[in-house]
């Protein structure tokens, strides 16, 4: 997909901003707080139906205004054009999304339609943060590429809440769990094993590419690896039914502890990803720059995975990615970005940070963002 035109009205500090990203790389350059990230955030609304970092939609409405609008002309690889409009009302928080004039009944229908891969400082947590951030990463990628994963993950969360409520009730009352607990366990295991299977297949699909991309970016012999960590007994290459068997046993083994804590203690909501460089855990041993490089390698692998799975080239959004990279790594990242087929939007406070700038023309554009306005830089 390509965003041809973007029009922001009352969106954060953009009162009325129109811009046309290039077909290749678009560099948004400007000082801190001018509204560069806000442009990426607006595109995230078009792709994921929400902000990539803020939990509250209504906060994106410009102060003193009631309704924000993000309007975009988007073209699919095959040339089909879409007019997408997102509106959010500050007072009620009501959000509406219209595609070619018709409102989406469910906002989740948008997920996967216009795929995006986003890399922002908030996502540093994928490498070194809490496991929840890595699970969120997996869920976002897989939901974009598989509607049935999205449906399973939403049902799984609901079943988990229901089952936890039974366990909590039993803990608070000091009684054995309700007799319908096994039914909830069955449903949890059924959905959970499908999620684990899909996540395993994702990691399987990207791990070679991830290692190669890391090596190319780092310019060293360092071997990077990514593994999915799940309930004990589940090994690589198992089918859903075998995973279900192992998950069921894992839950059974924790029965007493589940009752003591009043929560479900095994399942995809407890799983994790492990990143390693030369066999050593990245979260403990990798430097800031190495962690950043791992993250870029992961995101570029995700980019290719999404391209293949969606049959649609995603848009790549890189927010402030170059800050922690040395000159050589920055140049290699830029080189890779230029060789990807799709559109890429980058923010930076200074053009010098991106290492090796392309020639600015219609394909690669440089746009100056200044207190909520955008203008093309004269070359």
């Amino acid at each position, binding site marked *: 997909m390509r965003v041809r035109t973007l029009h922001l009205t009352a969106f954060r500090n953009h009162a009325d901003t129109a811009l046309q990203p290039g077909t290749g790389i678009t560099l948004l350059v400007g000082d801190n707080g001018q509204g560069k990230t806000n442009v990426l955030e607006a595109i995230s609304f078009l792709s994921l139906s929400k902000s990539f970092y803020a939990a509250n939609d209504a906060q994106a409405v410009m102060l003193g205004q009631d309704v924000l609008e993000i309007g975009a002309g988007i073209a699919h690889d095959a040339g089909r054009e879409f007019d997408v409009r997102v509106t959010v009302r500050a007072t009620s928080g009501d959000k509406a999304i219209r595609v070619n004039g018709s409102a989406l009944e469910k906002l989740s229908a948008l997920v996967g339609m216009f795929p995006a891969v986003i890399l922002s400082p908030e996502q540093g947590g994928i490498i070194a943060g809490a496991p929840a951030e890595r699970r969120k990463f997996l869920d976002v990628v897989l939901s974009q590429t598989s*509607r049935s994963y999205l449906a399973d993950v939403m049902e799984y969360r609901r079943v988990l809440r*229901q089952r936890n409520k039974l366990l909590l009730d039993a803990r608070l009352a000091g009684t054995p769990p309700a007799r319908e607990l096994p039914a909830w366990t069955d449903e949890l295991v059924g959905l959970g094993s499908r999620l684990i299977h899909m996540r395993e297949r994702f990691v399987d699909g990207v791990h070679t590419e991830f290692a190669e991309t890391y090596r190319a970016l780092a310019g060293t012999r360092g071997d990077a690896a990514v593994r999915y960590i799940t309930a004990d007994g589940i090994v690589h290459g198992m089918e859903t039914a075998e995973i279900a068997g192992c998950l069921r046993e894992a839950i059974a083994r924790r029965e007493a502890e589940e009752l003591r804590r009043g929560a479900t203690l095994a399942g995809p909501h407890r799983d994790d990803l492990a990143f390693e460089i030369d066999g050593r855990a990245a979260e403990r041993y990798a430097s800031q720059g190495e962690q950043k490089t791992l993250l870029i390698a992961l995101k570029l692998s995700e980019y290719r995975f999404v391209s293949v799975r969606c049959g649609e080239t995603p848009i790549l959004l890189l927010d402030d990615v170059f800050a922690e990279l040395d000159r050589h790594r920055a140049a290699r990242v830029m080189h890779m970005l230029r060789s990807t087929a799709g559109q890429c939007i980058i923010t930076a406070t200074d053009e010098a940070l991106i290492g090796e700038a392309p020639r600015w023309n219609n394909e690669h554009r440089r746009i100056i963002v200044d207190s909520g306005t955008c203008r093309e830089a004269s070359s």
Partner: protein
Amino acid sequence: MLYTSEALQQLVEEFARLPGIGRKTALRLSLFMLKRPREDVVKMARALVDVKDRITNCSVCCNITEADPCTICTSAKRERTTMCVVEEPSDVIALEKTNEFRGLYHVLGGALSPLDGIGPDDLKVRELLARFPGDITEVILALNPTVEGEATTIYLTRLLKPLGAKISRLARGIPVGGNLEFADEATLSRALEGRITL
């Protein structure tokens, strides 16, 4: 006070309790009632009281009925060996409209949902088990395809299996008259999973 009449205010508040009715619609409905002839309004008021006074639950299938046991449970034309378990009386009405199902029903009155405080004792599960042993040899679990309906299906299957009846569930899939290309992918992938050998 919002209105010039307390009676009107009262009616608006009553209408506003109905599902899907906001205060604006409630006011419109109230003013509409005000304009109608008295006898029409009385007729409607009586109809409201009648549903409350005359309808009870069938002691066998727990569906809503005026006669106990209900007309389906006592009908000689129904197959007494097949039973369809549903969540609500509205599900019975929907299934009856198909004219396909000639067996008996059992209305649970909801589905398991710990978050709403609903367990087996809040559903008509004891009444369901009381119908065994009997003539029933096949049970069709026709609960909603929600997380709660699914848990209830699993729960009932575990309970009913040992009783020896054949147990089935409704197929999940593509709506009739729908185009494959417009089916949402989650429905399509589950329909694919539950495909039928020809």
